[in-house]
């Protein structure tokens, strides 16, 4: 198990080739580091003293070559170190994640996601850093130290002994300080984790915090942890830097001794000047390897602490094997037998007691009872999500605790109360369970994945088909993705106008080049197309000089400024003194953010002739007029004269832009697919004139009918299945998520189903639909254990088990239990009166 491996394991298992290469490079580097010292001596003693330029140049070139080699090699060494370190980190991260995912659910009840995340993301990083340096850094620096030390002895043994005398003191003192630093560091790691879980908790429960206005409570809780962290970090950094300061101090004592003794010897003539210079250099150069060694020592200590902490935390045995060894995965028939099952959790709390039950293949059992009675726990024990602590549960004669995860996954489908939907497409989520069963090494098994027809059938069964269709219709197709599809869609568009045009005339305004669009803005009416260049998007048009010139040419500017003035005046008149509420602004051409600006503008231009309004204000009015949608902004009517001017302008603009910038806009043509708009908009080819739900419903029905006629329905659903559901599926509603989770399990088609209040987020009709489906399609085929909260749907089950305080109190067919007038009767009809 990965958590038992010591930190050194990762060093040993790192690439030996790279480590060996490192060693070779290190030896060369050390040589290249010592050589300049000798050169220094030679330059002073020989070249300068003897005044030989050629020798000076020669020694200097040796010197520079050595320096360049040392620096270059240092860089290569760093690269290799980083590679080795990151590679080890990579292995630790993968291995640890793999291990964490196998841990039992009980582990995750006591640890928070925040903690796991910070372990995997930040805390292991120091371990990686250490592994990279583990061999090269100590070797390089020890060798360098030895080489410099030996060189110093070679120059003058006495001086060498004197100047190195401080080092043993450092070596003695540093570990003592480091031990304290480590202690503080351990505490820091723990507090940081607590902080992560606190933040994680607060964010997950943000709705409760807002709902209770408990910001203060949460801030205090968090504040306490941060304060602790503050204190411990200061202590930690003090010790950490204490080590450095100590080191620095002793390091600087060296030259003092050198000058004192070396100077005395030189004056006495027992030590030549060149040797003294070389000695000083050597001593100064000792500092770098020594410092690196010290740093390495700290990295090692930090890595050891955080690595140990992580591994200790996750040192839990998985309860079950992932896949069977030496046999095929079982195919079970669906019979379930439980004998004297009990489940006790830490603290001796018994959640299940003496559970006895058996189900024949295909039988359906409803588990009912008060909350806390153990229904879900029992279902979880059968589904291997909890490990029961006593008795036996057998599936097809095989003990559940002996089965591997793969046996369970293949034979059982579990829909939990709060199903989890992963980031990805609907399709990925639908096939999630089936995909997991496929052996990565056997690509041919992929053929067994459910095909489109089967997927669509299940989508229909669980009642999410229309939703997926809508996602499909709201998709923007990529350019030229599918010529045939767009052709068909254009046919659908044509039939939509032909067959429903008249009927929907009240709810819908089709794009027609010759008609003014009352439900589109003035700008959209002018360009009459979908902008392909950003500068021509309707919100940018008022700033687009080309477009502004065009307005002048078409003599539209003045009339539009007039319109803008009317709009601004009327809107301010009605909304002027109201608070900025979204409801009031829904039909206003002025948005909430701009309201104050326009209010001031209206104040400025009251009783001012239009020609006297300054340029900036005119532009604001023009901007307002360009976004005027007569069908929505009903404060002002569009003057018929202006309407005609705009229609003329539309043709002028089309000609002008076709000349100057033909790719700027895709014009609306009934025969062209508009790639910048959704499939639905392409079919509609117009705008709805009301958001009345009845009108929406009618439009939807018409479209589905046409898609069926063109044989496109499945194709659009297929596109809809590519819809990305967002993190945790948050672009779906609660009901959609639950339906998707049910569909996911149905697609797997397992012989055993466990549904833990699987329909709790669905409306009555959807819940009934799923219930009917279970009774007609699954009864007799798959064994079902359903934890049920609502008692009106349990009549169709073969057996009902009533649970109370961890025991099955009664079990049998619904009618039998009701006629017995026991607990079920009480649950259904309320407590017996008078008793």
């Amino acid at each position: 198990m990965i958590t038992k491996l010591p930190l050194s394991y990762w060093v040993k298992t790192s690439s030996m080739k790279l480590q060996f290469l490192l060693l070779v490079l290190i030896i060369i580097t050390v040589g290249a580091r010592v050589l300049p010292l000798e050169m220094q001596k030679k330059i002073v003693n020989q070249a300068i003293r003897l005044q030989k330029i050629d020798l000076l140049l020669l020694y200097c070139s040796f010197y520079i070559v050595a320096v360049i080699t040392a620096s270059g090699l240092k860089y290569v060494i760093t690269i290799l170190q980083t590679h080795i370190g990151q590679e080890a980190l990579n292995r630790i991260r993968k291995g640890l994640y793999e291990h964490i995912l196998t841990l039992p659910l009980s582990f995750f009840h006591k640890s928070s996601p925040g903690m796991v995340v910070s372990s995997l993301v930040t805390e292991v990083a120091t371990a990686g850093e250490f592994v990279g340096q583990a061999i090269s850094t100590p070797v390089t620096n020890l060798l360098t130290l030895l080489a410099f030390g030996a060189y110093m002895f070679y120059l003058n043994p006495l001086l060498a002994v004197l100047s190195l005398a401080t080092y043993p003191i450092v070596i003695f003192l540093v570990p003592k300080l480091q031990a304290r630093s480590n202690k503080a560091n351990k505490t820091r790691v723990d507090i940081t984790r607590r902080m992560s879980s606190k933040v994680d908790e607060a964010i997950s429960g943000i709705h409760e915090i807002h709902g209770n206005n408990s910001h203060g409570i949460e801030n205090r809780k968090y504040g306490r942890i941060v304060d602790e962290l503050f204190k411990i970090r200061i202590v930690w950094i003090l010790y950490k830097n204490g080590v450095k300061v100590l080191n620095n101090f002793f390091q600087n004592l060296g030259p003092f001794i050198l000058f004192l003794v070396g100077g005395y010897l030189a004056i006495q003539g027992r030590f030549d000047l060149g040797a003294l210079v070389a000695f000083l250099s050597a001593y100064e150069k000792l500092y770098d390897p020594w410092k690196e060694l010290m740093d390495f020592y700290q990295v090692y200590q930090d890595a050891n602490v955080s690595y140990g902490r992580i591994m200790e935390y996750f040192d839990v045995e998985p309860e079950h094997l992932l896949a069977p060894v030496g046999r095929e995965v079982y195919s079970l028939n669906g019979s379930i037998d439980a004998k004297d099952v009990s489940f006790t959790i830490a603290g001796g709390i018994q959640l299940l007691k003496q559970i006895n039950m058996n189900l024949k293949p295909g039988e359906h059992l409803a588990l009912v009872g008060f909350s806390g009675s153990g229904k879900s726990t029992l279902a979880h024990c059968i589904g291997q999500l909890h490990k029961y602590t006593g008795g036996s549960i057998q599936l097809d004669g095989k003990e559940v605790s002996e089965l591997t995860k793969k046996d369970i996954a293949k034979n059982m489908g579990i829909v939990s109360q709060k199903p989890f939907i992963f980031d990805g497409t609907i399709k990925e989520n639908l096939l999630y369970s089936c995909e997991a069963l496929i052996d990565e090494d056997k690509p041919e098994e992929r053929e067994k994945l459910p095909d489109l027809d089967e997927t669509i059938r299940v989508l229909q069964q669980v009642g999410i088909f229309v939703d997926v269709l809508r996602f499909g219709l709201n998709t923007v197709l990529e350019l030229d993705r599918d010529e045939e599809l767009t052709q068909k869609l254009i046919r659908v568009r044509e039939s939509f106008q032909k067959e429903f045009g008249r009927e929907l005339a009240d709810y819908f305004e089709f794009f027609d080049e010759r008609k003014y669009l009352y439900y589109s803005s003035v700008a959209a009416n002018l360009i009459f197309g979908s902008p392909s260049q950003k500068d021509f998007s309707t919100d940018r048009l008022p700033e687009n000089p080309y477009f502004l010139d065009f307005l002048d040419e078409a003599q539209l500017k003045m009339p539009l400024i007039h319109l803008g003035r009317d709009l601004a005046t009327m809107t301010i008149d009605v909304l002027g003194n109201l608070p900025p509420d979204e409801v009031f602004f829904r039909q206003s051409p002025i948005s909430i953010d701009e309201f104050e600006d326009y209010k001031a503008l209206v104040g400025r231009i009251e009783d001012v002739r239009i020609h006297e309004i300054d340029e900036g204000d005119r532009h604001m009015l023009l901007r307002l007029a360009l976004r005027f949608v007569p069908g929505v902004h009903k404060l002002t009517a569009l003057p018929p004269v202006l309407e005609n001017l705009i229609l003329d302008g539309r043709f002028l603009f089309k000609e002008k832009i076709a000349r100057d910038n033909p790719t700027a806009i895709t014009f609306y043509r009934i025969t062209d697919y508009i790639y910048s708009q959704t499939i639905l908009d392409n079919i509609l080819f117009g705008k709805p004139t009301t958001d009345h739900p009845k009108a929406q419903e009618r439009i939807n029905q018409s479209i589905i009918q046409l898609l069926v006629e063109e044989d496109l329905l499945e194709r659009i659903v297929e596109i809809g299945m590519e819809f990305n559901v967002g993190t945790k599926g948050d672009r779906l509603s609660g009901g959609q998520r639950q339906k998707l989770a049910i569909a996911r399990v149905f697609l797997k088609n397992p012989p055993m189903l466990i549904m833990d209040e699987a329909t709790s987020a669905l409306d009555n009709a959807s819940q009934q639909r799923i219930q009917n489906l279970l009774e007609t399609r699954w009864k007799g085929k798959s064994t079902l254990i359903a934890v049920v909260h609502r008692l009106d749907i349990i009549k169709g089950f073969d057996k009902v088990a009533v649970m109370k305080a961890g025991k099955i109190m009664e079990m049998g067919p619904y009618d039998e239990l009701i006629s017995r007038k026991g607990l079920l009767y009480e649950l259904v009809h309320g407590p017996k009166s008078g008793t």
Partner: protein
Amino acid sequence: MNSYTDQNQAPSEYQGNLEILMQIPFFSGMPIDAMKLIAFLCTRETFRPGDYLFQEGDVDPHAYFFIKGKAVLTLSTPGDEMVIREYSENDFLGGLSILWISKRFFSLKAITDTRCLVLERDRFQKILDQFPQIARPILEEICAFIHDWESRLIGSHAETCPPCRSSLGLSLF
């Protein structure tokens, strides 16, 4: 020079709404600012013959004023559908629905092409928040309605229909 003066301007839908609202007793007596806001937040909806404006059991949060068209109000009884009355041009209904949430007892079905001015509860509530003083004339209007209604009921039913008597007394609320 230019032709965009107020004289030439066709009245906007908002102005039309304002004129209509002034005729409806439910809204009459409100300050003009509130009336303007209501006119601004109303919508116009179209119904085809056979379309339901609302159905029994719907929680329909709208008040309706008939600009044109006809609709019939029905009540379903076991096995049958009773026609209560017809609504047509200039009729207003649904005032209570924009004041509080309740289910419809009746269904209203358009029988000709119908266009209505519609006010939705949430919007009206926002207006009420801004102009709390408009509640008073509305309250008075409701009282007057109850009073007139009971007075008609007493006049037409009290003597001829003994069982109806027990349900009299609404105006004593």
